[in-house]
């Protein structure tokens, strides 16, 4: 079994969100970078669990990014990836990134391609579906459980107000979220081993971008909280009914 896990680099969840260059760029100064949580905690850890169940499995990682991504790629290798590809590029939209991942995937003949549900910075939830279409593979998004049964994938995915269990033959692209696995911390042996695992840098294939970011905005500041005394919570209900008109 060969699994490809797509990992992206995102600002730490506590990073201050601010913009530079006339609101056209994320102000990255002093920001800590992490592996996108969905990619790490769910996609990668589930892949590692599948390898633990079947040691003949190999886990490849792919990141489309500059050399700045290498620390997060090494961390993913320390957690349990076997080898990694970095497609050396820093510009391009979701379609461009998906095209790069699809090119790597075509070379590798993977049984499974895992992505995160979404990146926590761009919130596209698009790249998994795009990769699947580029490879003409089925795609199951928002997976909360993934198992293999007699060569088929059995995937539980979230739907509005519930869950659905799907069965599909491999290969398949799956986007992963909470429920798939539990977060792990790399151990010393993993960290040492990661230093010598293969990290292959490739140049991007030609691909278009369909979209560009024109600018960023921050939401307007709140006016401030109106406090109601804990002695008279019924006053809150009145305000919600008569002033805010939301109940």
């Amino acid at each position, binding site marked *: 079994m060969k699994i490809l896990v797509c990992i992206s680099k995102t600002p730490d*969840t506590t990073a201050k*969100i601010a913009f530079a260059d006339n609101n056209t760029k994320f102000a990255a100064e002093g920001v800590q970078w992490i592996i996108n*949580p969905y990619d790490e905690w769910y996609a990668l850890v589930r892949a590692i669990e599948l390898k633990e169940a079947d040691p003949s499995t190999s886990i490849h990682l792919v990141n489309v990014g500059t050399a700045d991504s290498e620390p997060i790629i090494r961390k993913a290798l320390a957690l349990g990836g076997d080898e990694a590809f970095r497609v050396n590029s820093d510009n391009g939209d979701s*379609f461009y990134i*998906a095209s790069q991942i699809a090119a790597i995937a075509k070379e590798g003949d993977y049984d499974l391609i895992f992505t995160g549900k979404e990146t*926590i*910075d*761009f*919130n*596209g*939830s*698009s*790249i*998994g*579906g*795009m990769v699947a*279409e580029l490879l003409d593979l*089925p*795609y199951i*998004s*928002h997976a*909360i459980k993934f198992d293999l049964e007699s060569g088929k994938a*059995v995937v539980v995915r*979230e*739907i*509005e*107000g*519930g*869950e*659905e*269990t*799907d*069965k*599909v*033959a491999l290969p398949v692209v799956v986007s992963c979220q*909470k429920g798939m696995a539990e977060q792990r911390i790399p151990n010393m042996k993993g960290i040492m081993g990661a230093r010598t695992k293969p990290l292959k840098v490739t140049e991007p294939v030609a691909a278009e971008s*369909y*979209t560009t*970011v024109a600018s*960023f*905005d921050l*939401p307007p500041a*709140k*006016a401030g*909280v*109106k*406090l*109601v*005394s*804990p002695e008279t*919570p*019924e006053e*809150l*209900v*009145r305000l*919600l*009914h008569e002033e*805010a008109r*939301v*109940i």
Partner: protein
Amino acid sequence: MSVLVFLDQADGHVKKSSFEAANYAAKVAGQLGTIAEAIVLGTVKDDLASLGNYGVKKVHTVADASLDNLDAQVYAKVIAQAVEGTSADVIIFSNNTAGKAIAPRLSVRLKAGLVSGAIALPDTSNGFTVKKTVFSGKAFANITVSTAKKIIALNPNSFSIVVGDGTAEVAAFTATVDTAKVEVASVNKIVGEVPLSEAEIVVSGGRGLKGPENWGLVTELATLLGAATACSRPVADIHWRPHHEHVGQTGLAIAPNLYIAVGISGAIQHLAGVNRSKTIVVINKDPEAPFFKAADYGIVGDVFEVMPKIIAAVKKLKGA
């Protein structure tokens, strides 16, 4: 040229988020001087002519029972045929689980730039630019689409529906439907519960509630208000509540009209998922809890004393 909106259905009924998407599509069509048409796949029980009230002129149906379950690969191909059939230049989805599965595929198929998580009408004054949420609701990005065809996936609850008068023409659309590769083995829905992503009111609980045995305070208020229930991440992690209720940066991002946070501190990762709510109410015993800074209304008090009184007052208001 036209604007085509995909209507997502479950159990034969068009989802609320799709009515919102339809109304949005009609507005976009107005901006572009054209009409909005809709496509719905599978067996539908609703009266589709009523989509006219949302501004849709024509609803195309592909009433093939094999489309009752979503296989994004099959759906994308059928919708691509409808795009061709209606000469649509702009295609609208709700950015719900179905939209997120189908729209990216369609984007590749049609070479159409996709803006997912849109929260406003496109700005067509200079090109075609759409505002979307980024950083899990902490900011917005204005995305310019440079392709001839464009796809917008609208975040649920981000556009106020204006219902008018009208009757849509309903017509069967003939499409080639591939055999699905994804077999749906079972569907497990929590019957009678309001789906969190579509809810107008959400009552949410945090670690301040001390244990699952106290959740009655949240669920009772939610039932009275017709609200969905949510929770903070640690609450889902320790299995006090099911994980699909977890909101925040690593959970669901929601934008209800009213979000009531009960015993939640308001960590930055939690706020990321809820700060687009129109009105935020915070009940917390700690006046320094960061959530108060993001709130519209608040009570500094003990949830075990305050909540029963709120529930009683809502009962009175609702005449229950």
